[in-house]
């Protein structure tokens, strides 16, 4: 269709559509990150994405696929290692997050033929989004939203009280695995938007902002998506008018919304 073509030919519109698609899944998954105290875990997975990119170049597989696989492997390793309990989970995460990032950077430096835009990977390169990226984003988003809708009750119940959920027949371990897979997928697609260093912000800040206003989990998810939309469209406008980097602008917009909501809601309450 000519209109859609015209829209998709414009890099700004591609960036906006892609960003909104990511916000659509960052909302609900961000809520789980906040509810389950997985912020540092998300950070670790995001950092390992860079290692995933390096490995994808090394064995020449598509970047997104390489990132997803690396994230999944790392997530599994984390789950297994945290069971042994020789190291506290935050220590373990700290080691793996920065080691994965460092190994990724070192590996990339060994491949002088490969020209990667490191700044783009670390902080996002939203304006260089291709049609192919859009396909990945919306394919991934559709998959994640369907999974979330089908598994919602079990996911929520095992977040509220794991043992109670288990007694009621919820497959808690399997759901945890599915949740990890969804995180890996969203990191792979969100990397393009805000970069590996800022992905966790896109997950956490809208969800935390929504928490101040929401009284039920589903409303919190809807609001988190809304604040994600505001962050993406606001950040892109900022980037367009002031020529600021797109990824950081989105995070700054999300943060400003967070401050405004907490400031205003605080006043209402007292």
């Amino acid at each position, binding site marked *: 269709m000519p209109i859609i073509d015209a829209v998709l030919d414009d890099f700004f519109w591609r960036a906006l559509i892609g960003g909104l698609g990511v916000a659509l899944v960052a909302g609900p998954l961000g809520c789980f990150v906040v509810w389950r105290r997985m912020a540092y875990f998300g950070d670790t997975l995001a950092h390992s994405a860079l290692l995933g990119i390096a490995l994808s170049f090394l064995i020449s597989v598509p970047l997104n696929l390489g990132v997803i696989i690396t994230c999944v492997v790392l997530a599994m390793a984390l789950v297994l290692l945290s069971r042994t309990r020789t190291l506290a989970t935050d220590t373990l995460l700290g080691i793996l997050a920065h080691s994965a990032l460092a190994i990724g950077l070192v590996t990339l430096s060994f491949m002088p033929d490969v020209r990667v835009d490191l700044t783009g990977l670390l902080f996002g390169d939203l304006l260089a989004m291709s049609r192919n990226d859009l396909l990945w984003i919306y394919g991934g988003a559709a998959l994640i939203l369907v999974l979330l809708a089908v598994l919602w009750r079990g996911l929520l119940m095992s977040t*509220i009280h794991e*043992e109670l959920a288990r*007694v*009621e027949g919820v497959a808690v371990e399997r759901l945890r695995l599915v949740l990890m897979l969804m995180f890996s997928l969203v990191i792979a697609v969100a990397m393009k938007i805000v970069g590996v260093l800022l992905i966790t912000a896109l997950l956490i800040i809208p969800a935390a902002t929504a928490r101040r206003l929401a009284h039920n*989990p589903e409303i919190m998810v809807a609001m988190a998506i809304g604040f994600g939309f505001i962050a993406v469209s606001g950040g892109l406008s900022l980037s367009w008018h002031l020529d600021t980097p797109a990824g950081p602008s989105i995070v700054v917009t999300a943060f400003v919304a967070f401050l405004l909501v907490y400031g205003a809601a605080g006043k209402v309450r007292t």
Partner: protein
Amino acid sequence: MTDPLVRLENLTVRFDERPVVDRVNLAIHRGDIITIIGPNGAGKTTLIKAVLGIQKVSAGHVSLKKNLVIGYVPQHLTLEATLPVSVKRFMLLSGQSIAECESALARTGVGHLLHASVHHLSGGEKQRLLLARALARKPDLLVLDEPAQGVDINGQASLYDLIRELRDDLNCGVIMISHDLHLVMAATDKVICLNQHVCCSGYPADISHDPAFIETFGRPVAESLAVYHHHHNHSHDLHGDVVEGGHTECDHAHH
């Protein structure tokens, strides 16, 4: 008697080769209220978890009646502050209809809190909410892990009364862990004193005389329980002395 709801045969759970629950045999029937008491680290919670099917068993068997519906009341409901949940939403997550949920809440005395946030409930209200949630599932077996923790003294007594009433309503079996020895002794059919193995079990009146019980809890506790139990079944005179058997009608009346 009919088939038991749950039968434990030589149930053993070991952590790193150390037995935490050691060869426990137990049957729970409909209408039973069985209370597990015992010192810290005696394996009470592990035993309960084995019954619930969320604890791997090292040896022995846990056999559950076919299609057994278990209502579980965990020790605490500690909700992450970032997760907003109303009582209504929490109840509906059980998968039961709103009518079922409302009647279960009313039954446990917290019907008026339907629209409240779970975060704003007191300890006692939270326990009653958890009980309502277990109740909404129409359980054959109620499993409670220290149901009266964080509840004040008056609340504790009425909570145990409520559990008895629910047992009568549902004709279900009840197994619970408790530290509230006095209340347990008054409200229970059968007490199991666990210290890895079952050190003694029986009716509250008998168990407090059991040498194994006295050894585990010490003579003062055993004696106070024995007295307390008399207080419930028999009578005290006005000076607080126990009136031994053959007491008059008058003694009964002032109970």
